């Protein structure tokens, strides 16, 4: 015997070591440098499967019923073959859905059912009691054995000792404290508990090392190896050896019980809450499953290799199999190896502590999420909720352990360790149909799962739990022997007369009812909406998305902002994690101006919030929290209107959508008339979808969105007026924002004008789609309205409408382009016509103007005159005239109105009229100019024109020529063998009102030549830019002195034209040649003046 204090102290030191390791693990997790995220630790943590049952109970079972202790470990080895696809699927689903426990897993699959979650929790709580009791009893009994004292040797007052007759109490207290501290460090149950896992891994190493050490020493120190033990047993008691090493010797040791144990263990290794916790929730990487699949069976192999030898050795050493459960402890003690016994005790303590810790954490998570949470979520969320929940979880851990203690108190020592454990295994396998069916059978539904579990659980209670309590003898009843009310058929351990070993019996009947109910109810009842969604996530988790978008089939009736969701999450998981989660989710998603995500994104966001909360509260509670939050703000999740009947079944575009697209293309290509296209398109929309009104607005020249076409009933307020392109209206917003504006429920509309209109019109939902080609600015808006359907605009529908609007934009573009070309062509034609008319008019004006000039020069005695006017353009401003007073007296005038415009021509005509009137009276030249200036001044000023004018008077009687000049080009006079310019002071007409003109007089002799001209001649520009000039003119004239005046005119004209050639004349050219003759007869024969002679074409000489 060891002293209690030594054992006590060693155990405390060991616990302190576990604390340190767990603390270190947690610290490393916080730093992000995990020590547990590797295959080795993962595999070791799964070996939490090996508990006191394995450590002590296996030897006990091996010594009593023999080899059938093995199926409990062979089963898990077989399941390891399925891990790579089965466990991997569970792990994947759990990670994607933030699963917190096996109850959460199963209830999530069946539509996050709270009832199912609660049922599984109750089953687990009840089912796990014997298992925990087993651990508590193992710890306390082993302590008692090793120290020989009870209750950890604490000096308790007698009174207390009588209150707690069962030694398990202190083990329960120690283990629950340890678990509460490590198992509930944070609320996020879906997160990994690295500290706990690290401690578990260490414990796993300790229990293996301890057991192997004990096994080796017993086998090779106490005996001469395994063979020696068996030979000795054969000699000592061949019957015992035969019983232990073969099957079929008794009812509890048959092929059938072998099969049942194998099956139970296969399911238990996956379905026990603590196994689910370490294998699924604490898994850091799916690839670790690979290593665990062989490392875990290998560990079990090593753990069991000495079980049989120890059992045989124990029987040899003690001569009996009584107390075989603790051979691991008692044999070293018996042999006097106290240190070895202490090591064995530590190993056993490790095995128990690890199991209790993980199991209680897993079960309390379930308890919190599925039993307490449904109550909590009915309360209004408060900021201290996360604190409350964490402490509730701690309370849950303690509760779970004390339930185990309670069971242990009742059942006491009546069961062997292994058999207590098997009671729990039989409970755990009840989850198998719902779980496996849920993973692989899409039809499995909530009704089936609840029905199956409830029935299976009831059978288990009746055939397994209930007898175990009666067996303990606390409740005296003969129900086990005679059945309830004497009905033998209902005997708990031989239901309907079936007599099997207890494990096979319970397994058969519970599975029979469980599976039958699951299958039948699943087939009879339908799956709910939420369930169908979950089936997709569970059954098809590995099926890769095929690239085509899955259309959203849900919408939120009232939009919820991101901030609202974050506030909700903060209340349950704290502010920091809530913000971290949401920013992780948003990533690069688009957020609109109101702080929300797009309407189509909202259901996803809601699901994300649910999932995040599920990580702490469990799926069912999280769903309830979000639902109640939504209903508080007046929103809820509802199905989108199924506008395409195939929206639910088809992942791709529905046939209807394709049909509409096709029809729209036909419409576009069939007609060139925009109005017809628009009419047809709107008719198509109204006919195919449940719309009440559709309007097309196009941007017009005034920048207004003009209603071009509409179809449907009513809507005068909508179609009646054009809309400005302003942000105040939804139409304007869609146009300016270049994106579809839609409201699925006009109740929540915010723009006052729109709200008023829609109220009046009874519009429930609407969409404004910009009519725009890819990348181009919109040309208008396609608007559709519904009076009956809320939630009409699904992502798919909006996409279709956008594509139709895109097609329409192209049609509009084509039509507009064609119209523009047409107009341009017409304008060009009109311009040409106009041009021709003007040209003709000008030609006419030219004819008229030329006809206003004297037809031919007058015949005056003593002089011969020739004159010519060649306008540069159609009309000109040059003018000359003759007024014959007597047969040898003539007045001549040469004028040049500035410019060559029609205006100049008109002024010239006016000048002519005025001049003609004024010339009625005989006036001196200066007088003529003065009067003309006076009369024309106002008109000239108004027209901003002016006139240069030369006025001369030839008097044949005196042979004098008197003249005055109003700024006109000075005429040239050839007299006495040389050229002179006739100059007289005078201002241009139309500059000032009162002008005095100088008048001069020269006498002329025969042979003299007077050349009066306009500046068109001397300013004619040659090829090199040089002007024709006076000198060149005089030279020309000099050459022509002996020619007749008419010939001079021709020659000068020809000279000037040749000079400017090939360019046409820039200015009008007019000239009057007066040659003084000596005879009385006019020397120049009258000759009709050439009319319409083209400028620049010289007349033929004659």
């Amino acid at each position, binding site marked *: 015997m060891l002293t209690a204090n030594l054992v006590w102290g060693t155990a405390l030191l060991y616990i302190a070591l576990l604390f340190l390791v767990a603390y270190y693990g947690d610290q490393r997790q916080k730093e992000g440098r995990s020590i547990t995220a590797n295959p080795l630790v993962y595999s070791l943590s799964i070996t939490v499967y090996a508990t006191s049952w394995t450590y002590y109970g296996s030897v006990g079972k091996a010594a009593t019923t023999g*080899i059938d202790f*093995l*199926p409990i*470990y*062979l089963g898990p*080895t*077989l*399941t*390891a*073959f*399925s891990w*790579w*696809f089965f466990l991997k699927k569970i792990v994947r689903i759990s990670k994607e859905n933030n699963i917190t426990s096996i109850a959460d897993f199963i209830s999530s699959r069946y539509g996050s059912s709270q009832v199912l979650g609660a049922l599984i929790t109750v089953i687990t709580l009840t089912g796990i009691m014997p298992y925990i009791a087993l651990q508590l009893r193992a710890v306390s009994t082993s302590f008692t054995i090793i120290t020989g004292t009870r209750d950890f040797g604490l000096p308790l007052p007698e009174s207390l000792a009588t209150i707690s007759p069962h030694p398990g109490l202190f083990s329960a207290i120690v283990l629950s404290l340890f678990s509460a501290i490590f198992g509930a460090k944070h609320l996020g149950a879906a997160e990994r508990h690295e500290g706990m896992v690290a401690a578990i891994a260490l414990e796993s190493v300790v229990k293996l090392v301890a057991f192997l050490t004990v096994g080796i020493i017993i086998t090779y120190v106490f005996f001469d*190896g*395994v*063979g*020696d033990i*068996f*030979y000795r047993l*054969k000699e000592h008691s*061949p019957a015992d*050896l*035969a019983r*232990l*090493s*073969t*099957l*079929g010797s008794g009812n509890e040791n048959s*092929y*059938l019980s*072998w*099969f049942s144990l*194998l099956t139970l263990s296969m399911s238990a290794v996956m379905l026990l809450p603590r196994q689910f916790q370490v294998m699924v929730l604490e898994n850091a990487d799916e*690839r670790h499953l*690979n*290593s665990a*699949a*062989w490392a875990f*069976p*290998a560990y079990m*192999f090593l753990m069991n*290799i000495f079980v*049989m030898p120890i059992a045989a050795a124990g029987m040899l050493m003690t001569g009996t199999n009584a107390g075989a459960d603790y051979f691991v402890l008692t044999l070293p003690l018996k042999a006097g190896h106290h240190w070895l016994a202490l090591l064995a005790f530590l190993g056993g303590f490790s095995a128990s502590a690890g199991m209790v810790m993980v199991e209680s954490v897993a079960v309390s998570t379930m308890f919190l999420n599925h039993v307490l949470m449904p109550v909590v979520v009915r309360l209004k969320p408060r900021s201290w909720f996360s604190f409350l929940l964490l402490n509730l979880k701690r309370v849950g851990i303690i509760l779970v352990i004390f339930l185990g203690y309670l069971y242990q108190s009742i059942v006491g020592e009546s069961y062997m360790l292994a058999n207590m454990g098997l009671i729990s295994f039989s409970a755990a396998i009840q989850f198998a149909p719902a779980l496996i069916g849920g993973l692989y059978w899409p039809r499995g539904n909530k009704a089936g799962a609840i029905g199956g579990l409830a029935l299976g659980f009831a059978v288990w209670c009746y055939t397994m739990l209930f007898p175990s309590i009666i067996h303990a003898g606390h409740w005296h009843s003969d129900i086990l022997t005679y059945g309830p009310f004497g009905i033998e058929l209902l005997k708990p351990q031989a239901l309907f007369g079936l007599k099997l070993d207890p494990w096979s019996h319970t397994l058969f009947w519970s599975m029979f009812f469980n599976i039958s109910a699951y299958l039948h109810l699943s087939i009879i009842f339908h799956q709910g909406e939420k369930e169908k969604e979950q089936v997709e996530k569970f059954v098809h988790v590995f099926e890769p998305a095929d690239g085509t978008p899955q259309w959203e089939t849900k919408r939120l009736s009232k939009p919820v902002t991101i901030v609202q969701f974050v506030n909700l999450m903060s209340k349950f998981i704290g502010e920091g994690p809530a913000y971290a989660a949401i920013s992780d989710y948003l990533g690069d998603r688009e957020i609109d101006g109101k702080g929300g995500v797009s309407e189509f994104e909202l259901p996803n966001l809601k699901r994300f919030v649910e999932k995040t909360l599920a990580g702490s509260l469990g799926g069912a509670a999280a769903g309830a929290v979000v639902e109640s939050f939504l209903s508080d703000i007046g929103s809820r999740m509802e199905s989108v209107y199924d506008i395409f009947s195939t929206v639910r079944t088809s992942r791709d575009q529905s046939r209807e959508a394709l049909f509409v697209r096709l029809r729209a293309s036909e419409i576009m290509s069939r007609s060139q008339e925009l109005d017809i296209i628009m009419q047809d398109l709107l008719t198509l929309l109204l006919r195919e979808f449940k719309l009440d009104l559709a309007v097309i607005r196009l941007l017009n020249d005034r920048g207004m969105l003009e209603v071009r076409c509409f179809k449907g009933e009513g809507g005068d307020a909508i179609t009646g007026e054009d809309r400005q392109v302003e942000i105040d209206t939804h139409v304007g917003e869609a146009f300016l924002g270049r994106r579809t504006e839609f409201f699925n429920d006009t109740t929540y509309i915010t723009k006052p004008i729109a709200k008023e209109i829609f109220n009046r019109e009874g519009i429930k939902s609407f969409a404004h789609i910009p009519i725009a080609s890819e990348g181009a600015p919109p040309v208008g808006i396609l608007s559709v309205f519904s009076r009956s359907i809320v939630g009409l605009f699904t992502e798919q529908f909006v996409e279709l409408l956008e594509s139709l609007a895109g097609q329409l934009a192209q049609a509009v573009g084509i039509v507009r382009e064609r119209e523009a070309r047409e107009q341009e062509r017409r304008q060009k034609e009109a311009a040409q016509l106009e041009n021709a008319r003007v040209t003709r008019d000008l030609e006419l004006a030219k004819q008229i103007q030329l006809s206003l000039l004297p037809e031919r020069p007058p015949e005056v005695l003593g002089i011969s005159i020739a004159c010519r006017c060649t306008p540069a353009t159609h009309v000109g401003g040059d003018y000359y005239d003759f007024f014959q007073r007597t047969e040898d007296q003539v007045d001549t005038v040469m004028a040049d109105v500035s410019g060559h415009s029609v205006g100049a021509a008109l002024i010239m005509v006016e000048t002519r009229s005025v001049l003609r009137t004024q010339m009625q009276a005989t006036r001196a030249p200066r007088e003529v100019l003065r009067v003309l200036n006076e009369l024309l001044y106002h008109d000239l000023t108004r027209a901003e024109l002016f006139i240069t004018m030369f006025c001369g008077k030839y008097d044949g009687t005196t042979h004098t020529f008197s003249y005055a000049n109003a700024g006109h080009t000075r005429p040239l006079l050839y007299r006495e063998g040389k050229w002179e310019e006739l100059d007289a002071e005078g201002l241009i007409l139309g500059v000032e009102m009162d002008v005095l003109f100088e008048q001069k007089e020269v006498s002329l002799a025969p042979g003299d030549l007077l050349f009066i001209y306009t500046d068109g001649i001397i300013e004619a520009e040659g090829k090199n830019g040089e002007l024709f000039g006076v000198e060149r003119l005089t030279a020309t004239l000099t050459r022509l002195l002996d020619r007749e005046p008419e010939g001079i005119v021709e020659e000068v004209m020809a000279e000037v034209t040749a000079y400017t050639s090939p360019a046409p004349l820039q200015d009008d050219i007019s000239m009057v040649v007066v040659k003084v003759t000596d005879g009385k007869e006019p020397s120049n024969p009258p000759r009709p003046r050439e009319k319409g002679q083209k400028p620049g074409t010289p007349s033929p000489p004659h």
Partner: protein
Amino acid sequence: MRKRFREGVAKRLRLKDTWVVWFVLGMVMMNYPFLSIFNRPVLPFGLPLLYLYLLTGWFVSICTVYLFSRAARKENEKRDRH
């Protein structure tokens, strides 16, 4: 030749079907009537026959799963590289 054989084996081992086949095979071999063949009270090599059979079968299973997991790990590494 040997390399081809090994690759072929690794490829088969990666198949889910192979896992299922071995799982079923294990179930059959660790149940009646297979067990009855070895269910005799004899001690070859000093160990009870049934015990020896089960331990051997267990060990073989572990080795097989190890091979499976190696094949799967190689597959993973290959996929990660691509």
